[in-house]
Protein backbone atom coordinates (compact mmCIF):
# COMPACT_ATOMS: atom_id res chain seq x y z
CA UNK A 1 0.00 0.00 0.00
CA UNK A 2 1.34 3.43 -0.84
CA UNK A 3 1.77 5.78 2.04
CA UNK A 4 -0.82 8.28 0.90
CA UNK A 5 -3.66 5.82 1.37
CA UNK A 6 -5.49 7.20 4.32
CA UNK A 7 -7.20 4.82 6.67
CA UNK A 8 -8.42 7.43 9.09
CA UNK A 9 -11.46 9.60 9.07
CA UNK A 10 -10.91 13.11 10.32
CA UNK A 11 -13.16 13.08 13.31
CA UNK A 12 -15.49 15.90 14.10
CA UNK A 13 -14.49 18.08 17.03
CA UNK A 14 -17.54 17.10 19.07
CA UNK A 15 -16.10 13.98 20.74
CA UNK A 16 -12.45 14.51 20.09
CA UNK A 17 -10.12 13.97 23.02
CA UNK A 18 -6.39 13.73 23.35
CA UNK A 19 -4.76 10.37 22.91
CA UNK A 20 -3.09 10.13 26.29
CA UNK A 21 -4.37 9.18 29.69
CA UNK A 22 -4.56 11.41 32.71
CA UNK A 23 -1.79 9.56 34.56
CA UNK A 24 1.15 11.51 33.06
CA UNK A 25 -0.66 14.71 33.91
CA UNK A 26 -1.06 13.73 37.55
CA UNK A 27 2.56 12.65 37.70
CA UNK A 28 3.74 15.89 36.15
CA UNK A 29 1.60 17.93 38.51
CA UNK A 30 3.16 16.18 41.46
CA UNK A 31 6.71 16.16 40.11
CA UNK A 32 6.92 19.56 38.48
CA UNK A 33 4.26 21.96 39.74
CA UNK A 34 4.45 20.91 43.34
CA UNK A 35 8.25 21.15 43.62
CA UNK A 36 8.13 24.62 42.11
CA UNK A 37 5.60 25.59 44.71
CA UNK A 38 7.68 23.94 47.39
CA UNK A 39 10.62 26.12 46.39
CA UNK A 40 8.56 28.97 47.72
CA UNK A 41 7.72 27.08 50.89
CA UNK A 42 11.33 26.28 51.66
CA UNK A 43 13.03 29.35 50.29
CA UNK A 44 10.64 32.16 50.98
CA UNK A 45 12.90 33.55 53.74
CA UNK A 46 15.69 34.03 51.20
CA UNK A 47 13.32 35.20 48.49
CA UNK A 48 11.65 37.79 50.70
CA UNK A 49 14.97 38.97 52.05
CA UNK A 50 16.27 39.47 48.51
CA UNK A 51 13.13 41.30 47.51
CA UNK A 52 13.53 43.60 50.49
CA UNK A 53 17.15 44.25 49.67
CA UNK A 54 16.23 45.20 46.13
CA UNK A 55 13.55 47.49 47.51
CA UNK A 56 16.07 49.13 49.83
CA UNK A 57 18.47 49.66 46.93
CA UNK A 58 15.85 51.29 44.78
CA UNK A 59 14.06 53.32 47.44
CA UNK A 60 16.98 54.54 49.56
CA UNK A 61 17.55 57.69 47.44
CA UNK A 62 13.97 58.74 48.21
CA UNK A 63 13.84 58.08 51.94
CA UNK A 64 15.87 59.29 54.91
CA UNK A 65 18.80 57.24 55.93
CA UNK A 66 17.85 54.53 58.45
CA UNK A 67 14.15 55.00 57.79
CA UNK A 68 14.19 51.86 55.67
CA UNK A 69 14.69 48.73 57.68
CA UNK A 70 14.33 45.05 56.77
CA UNK A 71 12.27 43.32 59.42
CA UNK A 72 12.47 39.61 60.01
CA UNK A 73 9.59 37.77 61.70
CA UNK A 74 8.46 34.19 62.15
CA UNK A 75 6.00 33.17 59.44
CA UNK A 76 4.77 29.64 58.80
CA UNK A 77 7.93 27.50 58.91
CA UNK A 78 10.67 30.09 58.65
CA UNK A 79 11.25 33.81 58.84
CA UNK A 80 9.56 36.17 56.49
CA UNK A 81 11.01 39.57 55.67
CA UNK A 82 9.41 42.86 54.88
CA UNK A 83 10.61 46.38 54.51
CA UNK A 84 9.61 48.76 57.28
CA UNK A 85 9.33 52.33 56.08
CA UNK A 86 7.61 55.56 57.01
CA UNK A 87 4.30 56.27 55.34
CA UNK A 88 2.88 59.52 54.02
CA UNK A 89 -0.21 60.26 56.02
CA UNK A 90 -2.68 62.24 53.92
CA UNK A 91 -3.65 65.71 55.03
CA UNK A 92 -7.28 66.60 55.39
CA UNK A 93 -7.17 68.60 52.19
CA UNK A 94 -5.64 65.70 50.31
CA UNK A 95 -8.28 63.37 51.66
CA UNK A 96 -10.98 65.81 50.66
CA UNK A 97 -9.61 66.16 47.14
CA UNK A 98 -9.50 62.39 46.74
CA UNK A 99 -12.99 62.05 48.13
CA UNK A 100 -14.38 64.55 45.68
CA UNK A 101 -12.41 63.13 42.79
CA UNK A 102 -13.49 59.55 43.46
CA UNK A 103 -17.08 60.61 44.01
CA UNK A 104 -17.07 62.45 40.70
CA UNK A 105 -15.69 59.36 39.03
CA UNK A 106 -18.36 57.23 40.65
CA UNK A 107 -21.04 59.51 39.32
CA UNK A 108 -19.49 60.06 35.91
CA UNK A 109 -18.11 56.72 34.80
CA UNK A 110 -21.33 54.66 34.88
CA UNK A 111 -22.95 57.16 32.56
CA UNK A 112 -20.38 56.89 29.81
CA UNK A 113 -21.50 54.42 27.19
CA UNK A 114 -18.19 53.52 25.64
CA UNK A 115 -15.54 51.05 26.79
CA UNK A 116 -17.91 49.68 29.40
CA UNK A 117 -15.65 46.96 30.87
CA UNK A 118 -12.78 49.41 31.37
CA UNK A 119 -15.14 51.90 32.96
CA UNK A 120 -16.50 49.32 35.33
CA UNK A 121 -12.96 48.55 36.40
CA UNK A 122 -12.45 52.27 36.85
CA UNK A 123 -15.64 52.47 38.90
CA UNK A 124 -14.40 49.74 41.19
CA UNK A 125 -11.11 51.55 41.70
CA UNK A 126 -12.98 54.77 42.35
CA UNK A 127 -15.24 53.07 44.86
CA UNK A 128 -12.36 51.67 46.86
CA UNK A 129 -10.59 55.02 46.73
CA UNK A 130 -13.78 56.75 47.85
CA UNK A 131 -14.10 54.48 50.90
CA UNK A 132 -10.46 55.00 51.73
CA UNK A 133 -10.60 58.75 51.26
CA UNK A 134 -13.76 59.05 53.33
CA UNK A 135 -12.09 57.02 56.07
CA UNK A 136 -9.15 59.36 56.17
CA UNK A 137 -11.45 62.35 56.02
CA UNK A 138 -13.76 61.30 58.84
CA UNK A 139 -11.77 59.07 61.17
CA UNK A 140 -8.12 59.41 60.18
CA UNK A 141 -6.91 58.36 63.62
CA UNK A 142 -8.71 55.05 63.27
CA UNK A 143 -6.74 53.95 60.22
CA UNK A 144 -5.22 50.70 61.43
CA UNK A 145 -2.13 50.48 59.26
CA UNK A 146 1.21 52.09 58.86
CA UNK A 147 3.21 51.75 55.69
CA UNK A 148 5.14 48.95 57.31
CA UNK A 149 1.91 47.08 57.92
CA UNK A 150 1.10 47.29 54.25
CA UNK A 151 4.56 46.08 53.42
CA UNK A 152 4.04 43.11 55.71
CA UNK A 153 0.59 42.32 54.24
CA UNK A 154 1.95 42.57 50.74
CA UNK A 155 4.78 40.14 51.39
CA UNK A 156 2.40 37.61 52.95
CA UNK A 157 0.04 37.90 50.03
CA UNK A 158 2.92 37.63 47.60
CA UNK A 159 4.22 34.45 49.19
CA UNK A 160 0.88 32.79 48.60
CA UNK A 161 0.76 34.12 45.02
CA UNK A 162 4.23 32.69 44.33
CA UNK A 163 3.12 29.41 45.84
CA UNK A 164 -0.01 29.11 43.70
CA UNK A 165 1.31 30.34 40.37
CA UNK A 166 3.05 27.01 39.46
CA UNK A 167 -0.05 25.08 40.51
CA UNK A 168 -2.41 27.20 38.42
CA UNK A 169 -0.07 27.20 35.46
CA UNK A 170 0.41 23.48 35.90
CA UNK A 171 -3.31 22.86 35.80
CA UNK A 172 -3.40 24.84 32.59
CA UNK A 173 -0.45 23.54 30.57
CA UNK A 174 0.34 20.09 31.95
CA UNK A 175 -2.76 18.37 30.49
CA UNK A 176 -1.91 19.54 26.99
CA UNK A 177 -0.24 17.15 24.53
CA UNK A 178 3.14 18.86 24.42
CA UNK A 179 6.71 17.94 25.20
CA UNK A 180 7.71 17.89 28.84
CA UNK A 181 10.63 20.34 28.42
CA UNK A 182 8.31 22.93 26.88
CA UNK A 183 5.87 22.58 29.76
CA UNK A 184 8.63 22.85 32.35
CA UNK A 185 10.07 25.85 30.57
CA UNK A 186 6.66 27.56 30.47
CA UNK A 187 6.10 26.96 34.15
CA UNK A 188 9.55 28.25 34.98
CA UNK A 189 8.92 31.34 32.89
CA UNK A 190 5.67 32.00 34.72
CA UNK A 191 7.33 31.45 38.07
CA UNK A 192 10.19 33.83 37.28
CA UNK A 193 7.70 36.32 35.84
CA UNK A 194 5.75 36.26 39.08
CA UNK A 195 8.92 36.77 41.10
CA UNK A 196 10.00 39.75 39.06
CA UNK A 197 6.52 41.21 38.80
CA UNK A 198 5.93 40.83 42.50
CA UNK A 199 9.24 42.53 43.28
CA UNK A 200 8.85 45.55 41.02
CA UNK A 201 5.25 45.97 42.13
CA UNK A 202 6.42 45.89 45.73
CA UNK A 203 8.98 48.60 45.13
CA UNK A 204 6.63 50.89 43.22
CA UNK A 205 3.74 50.42 45.66
CA UNK A 206 5.96 51.06 48.66
CA UNK A 207 7.03 54.29 47.04
CA UNK A 208 3.41 55.30 46.55
CA UNK A 209 2.54 54.46 50.15
CA UNK A 210 5.66 56.03 51.57
CA UNK A 211 6.00 59.11 49.45
CA UNK A 212 2.63 59.89 47.93
CA UNK A 213 -0.03 58.79 50.36
CA UNK A 214 -1.35 56.00 52.55
CA UNK A 215 -4.76 56.81 51.13
CA UNK A 216 -4.03 54.57 48.15
CA UNK A 217 -3.22 51.53 50.25
CA UNK A 218 -6.65 49.93 49.89
CA UNK A 219 -6.70 50.41 46.11
CA UNK A 220 -3.24 48.93 45.75
CA UNK A 221 -4.01 46.00 48.01
CA UNK A 222 -7.39 45.06 46.56
CA UNK A 223 -7.71 46.13 42.97
CA UNK A 224 -4.11 46.05 41.82
CA UNK A 225 -3.11 43.04 43.84
CA UNK A 226 -3.80 39.37 43.07
CA UNK A 227 -6.32 40.06 40.32
CA UNK A 228 -3.55 41.58 38.25
CA UNK A 229 -1.37 38.51 38.69
CA UNK A 230 -3.84 36.54 36.64
CA UNK A 231 -3.08 38.72 33.66
CA UNK A 232 0.35 37.25 33.14
CA UNK A 233 -0.72 33.75 34.16
CA UNK A 234 -3.44 33.78 31.53
CA UNK A 235 -1.19 35.60 29.06
CA UNK A 236 1.58 33.04 29.27
CA UNK A 237 -0.96 30.21 29.13
CA UNK A 238 -2.63 31.64 26.04
CA UNK A 239 0.66 32.17 24.20
CA UNK A 240 1.78 28.66 25.01
CA UNK A 241 -1.50 27.05 24.00
CA UNK A 242 -1.66 29.04 20.78
CA UNK A 243 1.84 27.97 19.80
CA UNK A 244 1.00 24.39 20.61
CA UNK A 245 -2.26 24.50 18.65
CA UNK A 246 -0.40 25.89 15.64
CA UNK A 247 2.30 23.25 15.94
CA UNK A 248 0.00 20.27 16.13
CA UNK A 249 -2.42 21.44 13.45
CA UNK A 250 -2.77 18.58 11.03
CA UNK A 251 -1.27 16.03 13.39
CA UNK A 252 -4.14 13.60 13.76
CA UNK A 253 -2.24 11.06 15.80
CA UNK A 254 -2.73 13.28 18.82
CA UNK A 255 -6.46 12.76 18.83
CA UNK A 256 -8.72 9.95 19.77
CA UNK A 257 -12.43 9.89 19.32
CA UNK A 258 -14.72 9.33 22.27
CA UNK A 259 -12.63 6.72 24.12
Amino acid at each position, binding site marked *: *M*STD*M*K*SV*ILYHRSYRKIAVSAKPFVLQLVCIALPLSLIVVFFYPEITRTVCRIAV*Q*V*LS*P*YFDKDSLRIVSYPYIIGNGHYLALPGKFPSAVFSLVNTIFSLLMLLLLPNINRLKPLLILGTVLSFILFISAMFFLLVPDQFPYQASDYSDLYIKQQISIWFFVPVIMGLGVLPLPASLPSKIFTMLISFV*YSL*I*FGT*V*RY*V*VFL*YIIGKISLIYMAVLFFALGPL*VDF*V*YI*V*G*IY*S*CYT*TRLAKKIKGNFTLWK*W*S*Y
Partner: protein
Amino acid sequence: MLLLCTILLVGLFMLPFLPAIREVMRKDDASPLFINMEYSKDPRYFAISFRRLLLKSAGDLPEGIHNITISKSETIKITNQADVPSDSLIENVFYVKNSLKTGSKVSLQKETYCQGNAQIGESNSIKAVACDGNVDVGKDSTFLRWIDSEKDMTIAENCNLGISATCSGKLSIAVGCTFMRLYGAPIIIAENNMISPAGGESVKYRTVVDGAPTERGISSLPPHDIRNSNLIAEGSLSIGEHAVIHGHIKSHGKIVLGASAVVMGNLFAEKDIEVGPGSRVYGSIFSQGCVKLQQGVTVGDAGRIKSVIGKKGISLECGVRVYGYVATEGKGIVG
Protein backbone atom coordinates in the same frame (compact mmCIF):
# COMPACT_ATOMS: atom_id res chain seq x y z
CA MET B 1 16.13 52.92 39.41
CA LEU B 2 12.61 53.71 40.60
CA LEU B 3 11.70 54.91 37.17
CA LEU B 4 13.05 51.69 35.76
CA CYS B 5 10.99 49.71 38.22
CA THR B 6 7.90 51.66 37.30
CA ILE B 7 8.49 51.16 33.60
CA LEU B 8 9.14 47.49 34.23
CA LEU B 9 5.95 47.18 36.26
CA VAL B 10 3.83 48.81 33.59
CA GLY B 11 5.60 46.82 30.93
CA LEU B 12 5.13 43.49 32.68
CA PHE B 13 1.47 44.33 33.24
CA MET B 14 0.87 45.32 29.61
CA LEU B 15 2.98 42.63 28.01
CA PRO B 16 0.40 39.81 28.32
CA PHE B 17 -2.14 42.00 26.55
CA LEU B 18 0.00 42.63 23.50
CA PRO B 19 -0.65 39.32 21.71
CA ALA B 20 -4.35 39.78 22.46
CA ILE B 21 -4.37 43.31 21.08
CA ARG B 22 -2.50 42.11 18.03
CA GLU B 23 -5.09 39.41 17.41
CA VAL B 24 -7.92 41.90 17.88
CA MET B 25 -6.40 44.10 15.20
CA ARG B 26 -5.27 41.42 12.77
CA LYS B 27 -8.29 39.12 13.18
CA ASP B 28 -6.25 36.07 12.20
CA ASP B 29 -8.82 33.79 13.81
CA ALA B 30 -11.98 35.84 13.93
CA SER B 31 -14.10 33.68 11.67
CA PRO B 32 -16.86 31.66 13.26
CA LEU B 33 -16.29 27.97 13.80
CA PHE B 34 -17.15 26.07 10.68
CA ILE B 35 -20.46 24.24 10.63
CA ASN B 36 -21.36 22.30 7.52
CA MET B 37 -24.82 23.66 6.84
CA GLU B 38 -25.50 20.96 4.27
CA TYR B 39 -24.56 18.07 6.52
CA SER B 40 -27.20 15.39 6.58
CA LYS B 41 -26.59 12.00 8.15
CA ASP B 42 -26.23 9.55 5.30
CA PRO B 43 -24.48 6.21 5.80
CA ARG B 44 -23.63 6.17 2.11
CA TYR B 45 -22.25 9.69 2.20
CA PHE B 46 -18.70 8.92 1.06
CA ALA B 47 -19.73 6.92 -1.97
CA ILE B 48 -22.50 9.25 -3.08
CA SER B 49 -20.25 12.23 -2.72
CA PHE B 50 -17.48 10.51 -4.65
CA ARG B 51 -19.80 9.53 -7.52
CA ARG B 52 -21.11 13.05 -7.79
CA LEU B 53 -17.65 14.60 -7.85
CA LEU B 54 -16.24 12.08 -10.28
CA LEU B 55 -19.13 12.31 -12.75
CA LYS B 56 -18.90 16.07 -12.64
CA SER B 57 -15.21 15.97 -13.53
CA ALA B 58 -14.97 12.91 -15.74
CA GLY B 59 -18.46 11.89 -16.74
CA ASP B 60 -18.01 12.90 -20.36
CA LEU B 61 -14.38 11.89 -20.86
CA PRO B 62 -13.48 9.04 -23.23
CA GLU B 63 -11.52 5.94 -22.29
CA GLY B 64 -7.87 6.46 -21.44
CA ILE B 65 -5.80 8.25 -18.85
CA HIS B 66 -6.79 11.80 -17.95
CA ASN B 67 -6.05 14.47 -15.37
CA ILE B 68 -9.03 15.61 -13.38
CA THR B 69 -9.80 17.41 -10.15
CA ILE B 70 -12.00 15.71 -7.61
CA SER B 71 -11.06 17.06 -4.19
CA LYS B 72 -7.56 17.57 -5.53
CA SER B 73 -5.72 16.94 -8.78
CA GLU B 74 -5.81 13.25 -9.77
CA THR B 75 -5.11 11.03 -12.73
CA ILE B 76 -7.99 8.85 -13.75
CA LYS B 77 -8.09 5.75 -15.85
CA ILE B 78 -11.34 5.34 -17.73
CA THR B 79 -12.34 2.09 -19.37
CA ASN B 80 -15.52 0.62 -20.71
CA GLN B 81 -15.11 -2.76 -19.11
CA ALA B 82 -12.33 -4.04 -16.88
CA ASP B 83 -10.94 -7.46 -16.26
CA VAL B 84 -7.98 -6.80 -14.03
CA PRO B 85 -5.58 -9.74 -13.95
CA SER B 86 -4.23 -11.16 -10.70
CA ASP B 87 -1.35 -9.39 -8.98
CA SER B 88 -2.08 -6.13 -10.81
CA LEU B 89 -1.60 -2.69 -9.35
CA ILE B 90 -3.61 0.33 -10.43
CA GLU B 91 -2.45 3.63 -9.01
CA ASN B 92 -5.05 5.88 -10.59
CA VAL B 93 -8.60 6.67 -9.81
CA PHE B 94 -10.41 3.99 -11.76
CA TYR B 95 -13.64 4.61 -13.65
CA VAL B 96 -15.26 1.58 -15.26
CA LYS B 97 -18.32 2.33 -17.32
CA ASN B 98 -19.63 -1.21 -17.30
CA SER B 99 -18.64 -4.26 -15.30
CA LEU B 100 -15.48 -4.77 -13.29
CA LYS B 101 -13.76 -8.00 -12.51
CA THR B 102 -10.49 -8.41 -10.63
CA GLY B 103 -8.30 -11.44 -10.12
CA SER B 104 -6.60 -12.30 -6.89
CA LYS B 105 -4.16 -10.05 -5.06
CA VAL B 106 -5.07 -7.01 -7.08
CA SER B 107 -4.32 -3.61 -5.58
CA LEU B 108 -6.46 -0.60 -6.47
CA GLN B 109 -4.72 2.26 -4.73
CA LYS B 110 -7.22 4.99 -5.43
CA GLU B 111 -10.99 5.17 -5.53
CA THR B 112 -12.84 3.07 -8.05
CA TYR B 113 -16.20 3.70 -9.63
CA CYS B 114 -17.95 0.95 -11.53
CA GLN B 115 -21.25 1.58 -13.24
CA GLY B 116 -22.00 -2.09 -13.83
CA ASN B 117 -21.56 -5.11 -11.57
CA ALA B 118 -18.31 -5.65 -9.73
CA GLN B 119 -16.67 -8.96 -8.98
CA ILE B 120 -13.72 -8.52 -6.65
CA GLY B 121 -11.29 -11.40 -6.43
CA GLU B 122 -9.66 -12.92 -3.38
CA SER B 123 -7.05 -11.08 -1.34
CA ASN B 124 -7.60 -7.81 -3.13
CA SER B 125 -6.44 -4.61 -1.54
CA ILE B 126 -8.70 -1.71 -2.46
CA LYS B 127 -8.94 1.83 -1.22
CA ALA B 128 -12.60 2.39 -2.03
CA VAL B 129 -15.20 1.16 -4.50
CA ALA B 130 -18.51 2.63 -5.54
CA CYS B 131 -20.59 0.37 -7.73
CA ASP B 132 -23.92 0.97 -9.40
CA GLY B 133 -24.59 -2.74 -9.81
CA ASN B 134 -24.19 -5.79 -7.61
CA VAL B 135 -20.92 -6.39 -5.85
CA ASP B 136 -19.30 -9.70 -5.01
CA VAL B 137 -16.16 -9.62 -2.93
CA GLY B 138 -13.80 -12.59 -2.67
CA LYS B 139 -12.38 -13.77 0.62
CA ASP B 140 -9.49 -12.14 2.44
CA SER B 141 -9.92 -8.83 0.65
CA THR B 142 -9.26 -5.51 2.34
CA PHE B 143 -10.96 -2.17 1.83
CA LEU B 144 -9.10 0.74 3.30
CA ARG B 145 -11.94 3.26 3.21
CA TRP B 146 -15.33 2.17 1.93
CA ILE B 147 -17.30 -0.01 -0.41
CA ASP B 148 -20.73 0.82 -1.70
CA SER B 149 -23.30 -0.64 -4.03
CA GLU B 150 -26.56 0.65 -5.43
CA LYS B 151 -27.89 -2.91 -5.39
CA ASP B 152 -26.84 -6.02 -3.48
CA MET B 153 -23.47 -6.80 -2.01
CA THR B 154 -22.00 -10.14 -1.00
CA ILE B 155 -18.83 -10.32 1.04
CA ALA B 156 -16.90 -13.57 1.43
CA GLU B 157 -14.96 -14.70 4.49
CA ASN B 158 -12.30 -12.80 6.37
CA CYS B 159 -12.60 -9.49 4.59
CA ASN B 160 -11.70 -6.20 6.18
CA LEU B 161 -14.46 -3.78 5.22
CA GLY B 162 -12.67 -0.59 6.18
CA ILE B 163 -14.63 2.40 7.40
CA SER B 164 -17.95 1.52 5.77
CA ALA B 165 -19.66 -1.11 3.65
CA THR B 166 -23.02 0.07 2.41
CA CYS B 167 -25.61 -0.78 -0.18
CA SER B 168 -29.17 0.00 -1.10
CA GLY B 169 -30.10 -3.66 -1.28
CA LYS B 170 -29.10 -6.75 0.61
CA LEU B 171 -25.70 -6.83 2.27
CA SER B 172 -24.53 -10.39 2.93
CA ILE B 173 -21.40 -10.86 4.99
CA ALA B 174 -19.58 -14.11 5.70
CA VAL B 175 -17.75 -15.09 8.86
CA GLY B 176 -14.47 -13.58 9.88
CA CYS B 177 -15.09 -10.16 8.39
CA THR B 178 -14.34 -6.95 10.27
CA PHE B 179 -16.04 -3.61 9.85
CA MET B 180 -16.83 -0.23 11.34
CA ARG B 181 -20.04 0.75 9.59
CA LEU B 182 -22.55 -1.26 7.64
CA TYR B 183 -25.72 -0.33 5.90
CA GLY B 184 -28.10 -2.59 4.05
CA ALA B 185 -31.72 -3.56 3.61
CA PRO B 186 -31.10 -5.88 5.27
CA ILE B 187 -27.64 -6.77 6.51
CA ILE B 188 -27.43 -10.55 6.70
CA ILE B 189 -24.65 -12.26 8.56
CA ALA B 190 -23.46 -15.70 7.52
CA GLU B 191 -26.92 -17.20 7.29
CA ASN B 192 -25.59 -20.48 5.99
CA ASN B 193 -23.41 -20.93 9.04
CA MET B 194 -26.21 -20.50 11.52
CA ILE B 195 -26.76 -23.48 13.79
CA SER B 196 -30.00 -22.67 15.52
CA PRO B 197 -33.03 -21.32 13.69
CA ALA B 198 -34.36 -17.82 14.26
CA GLY B 199 -36.91 -17.45 17.05
CA GLY B 200 -39.40 -14.92 18.25
CA GLU B 201 -41.19 -14.77 14.88
CA SER B 202 -44.50 -15.83 16.38
CA VAL B 203 -44.87 -12.50 18.22
CA LYS B 204 -46.28 -9.94 15.85
CA TYR B 205 -44.92 -6.42 15.84
CA ARG B 206 -46.98 -3.84 17.68
CA THR B 207 -46.05 -0.17 17.67
CA VAL B 208 -44.87 1.04 21.03
CA VAL B 209 -47.52 3.39 22.33
CA ASP B 210 -46.33 6.88 23.03
CA GLY B 211 -46.90 7.56 26.69
CA ALA B 212 -46.71 3.90 27.66
CA PRO B 213 -46.17 3.49 31.40
CA THR B 214 -42.63 3.27 32.67
CA GLU B 215 -41.36 0.77 35.19
CA ARG B 216 -38.25 1.72 37.13
CA GLY B 217 -35.88 0.00 39.44
CA ILE B 218 -36.01 -3.42 37.80
CA SER B 219 -32.91 -5.52 37.50
CA SER B 220 -34.29 -8.71 35.98
CA LEU B 221 -37.33 -10.20 34.32
CA PRO B 222 -38.15 -13.90 34.43
CA PRO B 223 -38.43 -16.06 31.33
CA HIS B 224 -41.69 -15.82 29.37
CA ASP B 225 -42.58 -12.56 31.08
CA ILE B 226 -44.72 -10.07 29.18
CA ARG B 227 -44.55 -6.34 29.88
CA ASN B 228 -46.58 -3.58 28.31
CA SER B 229 -44.38 -0.74 29.45
CA ASN B 230 -41.05 0.97 29.07
CA LEU B 231 -38.37 -0.33 31.38
CA ILE B 232 -35.74 1.89 32.99
CA ALA B 233 -33.06 0.22 35.08
CA GLU B 234 -30.67 2.17 37.31
CA GLY B 235 -28.19 -0.68 37.11
CA SER B 236 -27.88 -3.70 34.86
CA LEU B 237 -30.90 -5.44 33.48
CA SER B 238 -31.34 -9.08 32.62
CA ILE B 239 -34.35 -10.21 30.62
CA GLY B 240 -35.29 -13.85 30.58
CA GLU B 241 -35.79 -16.10 27.60
CA HIS B 242 -38.94 -15.73 25.54
CA ALA B 243 -39.88 -12.53 27.36
CA VAL B 244 -41.87 -10.00 25.38
CA ILE B 245 -41.51 -6.29 26.05
CA HIS B 246 -43.99 -3.94 24.41
CA GLY B 247 -41.90 -0.88 25.11
CA HIS B 248 -38.44 0.65 25.11
CA ILE B 249 -35.68 -0.39 27.45
CA LYS B 250 -33.04 1.81 29.04
CA SER B 251 -30.36 0.68 31.40
CA HIS B 252 -27.63 2.62 33.17
CA GLY B 253 -25.67 -0.60 33.33
CA LYS B 254 -25.63 -3.60 31.06
CA ILE B 255 -28.52 -5.26 29.25
CA VAL B 256 -28.66 -8.99 28.71
CA LEU B 257 -31.55 -10.18 26.63
CA GLY B 258 -32.29 -13.88 26.88
CA ALA B 259 -32.79 -16.21 23.96
CA SER B 260 -35.84 -15.72 21.77
CA ALA B 261 -36.92 -12.61 23.62
CA VAL B 262 -38.84 -9.94 21.77
CA VAL B 263 -38.56 -6.21 22.29
CA MET B 264 -40.92 -3.99 20.34
CA GLY B 265 -39.01 -0.80 21.07
CA ASN B 266 -35.44 0.41 21.39
CA LEU B 267 -32.63 -0.74 23.63
CA PHE B 268 -30.33 1.80 25.27
CA ALA B 269 -27.54 0.99 27.68
CA GLU B 270 -24.66 2.86 29.25
CA LYS B 271 -22.67 -0.35 29.21
CA ASP B 272 -22.73 -3.49 27.07
CA ILE B 273 -25.74 -5.02 25.41
CA GLU B 274 -25.97 -8.70 24.75
CA VAL B 275 -28.87 -10.06 22.76
CA GLY B 276 -29.49 -13.77 23.08
CA PRO B 277 -29.90 -16.16 20.18
CA GLY B 278 -33.07 -15.94 18.18
CA SER B 279 -34.21 -12.74 19.82
CA ARG B 280 -36.06 -10.05 17.96
CA VAL B 281 -35.60 -6.35 18.57
CA TYR B 282 -37.90 -4.20 16.47
CA GLY B 283 -36.25 -0.96 17.47
CA SER B 284 -32.72 0.39 17.50
CA ILE B 285 -29.94 -0.70 19.79
CA PHE B 286 -27.52 1.81 21.28
CA SER B 287 -24.71 1.14 23.72
CA GLN B 288 -21.90 3.29 25.12
CA GLY B 289 -20.05 -0.02 25.41
CA CYS B 290 -20.14 -3.11 23.20
CA VAL B 291 -23.02 -4.81 21.47
CA LYS B 292 -23.16 -8.52 20.91
CA LEU B 293 -25.90 -10.00 18.77
CA GLN B 294 -25.94 -13.75 19.06
CA GLN B 295 -27.06 -16.21 16.45
CA GLY B 296 -30.26 -15.55 14.63
CA VAL B 297 -31.00 -12.16 16.19
CA THR B 298 -33.06 -9.82 14.04
CA VAL B 299 -33.06 -6.08 14.49
CA GLY B 300 -35.67 -3.92 12.78
CA ASP B 301 -38.11 -5.02 10.17
CA ALA B 302 -38.57 -4.90 6.42
CA GLY B 303 -39.40 -1.40 5.25
CA ARG B 304 -38.19 0.26 8.47
CA ILE B 305 -34.61 1.33 9.06
CA LYS B 306 -33.16 0.78 12.52
CA SER B 307 -29.66 1.03 13.89
CA VAL B 308 -27.26 -0.94 15.99
CA ILE B 309 -24.68 1.36 17.57
CA GLY B 310 -21.99 0.06 19.88
CA LYS B 311 -19.44 2.70 20.71
CA LYS B 312 -16.67 0.33 21.69
CA GLY B 313 -17.41 -2.66 19.51
CA ILE B 314 -20.00 -4.83 17.81
CA SER B 315 -20.08 -8.56 17.42
CA LEU B 316 -22.53 -10.09 14.93
CA GLU B 317 -22.92 -13.84 14.99
CA CYS B 318 -24.20 -16.07 12.26
CA GLY B 319 -27.74 -15.57 11.16
CA VAL B 320 -28.02 -12.03 12.47
CA ARG B 321 -30.17 -9.71 10.42
CA VAL B 322 -30.21 -5.97 10.75
CA TYR B 323 -32.57 -3.86 8.74
CA GLY B 324 -30.53 -0.71 8.49
CA TYR B 325 -27.36 0.60 10.00
CA VAL B 326 -24.61 -0.82 12.15
CA ALA B 327 -21.84 1.38 13.47
CA THR B 328 -19.01 1.25 15.95
CA GLU B 329 -15.96 3.32 16.73
CA GLY B 330 -14.27 0.22 18.02
CA LYS B 331 -14.03 -3.08 16.21
CA GLY B 332 -16.88 -4.78 14.40
CA ILE B 333 -16.56 -8.52 14.05
CA VAL B 334 -18.64 -11.02 12.16
CA GLY B 335 -18.96 -14.67 13.20
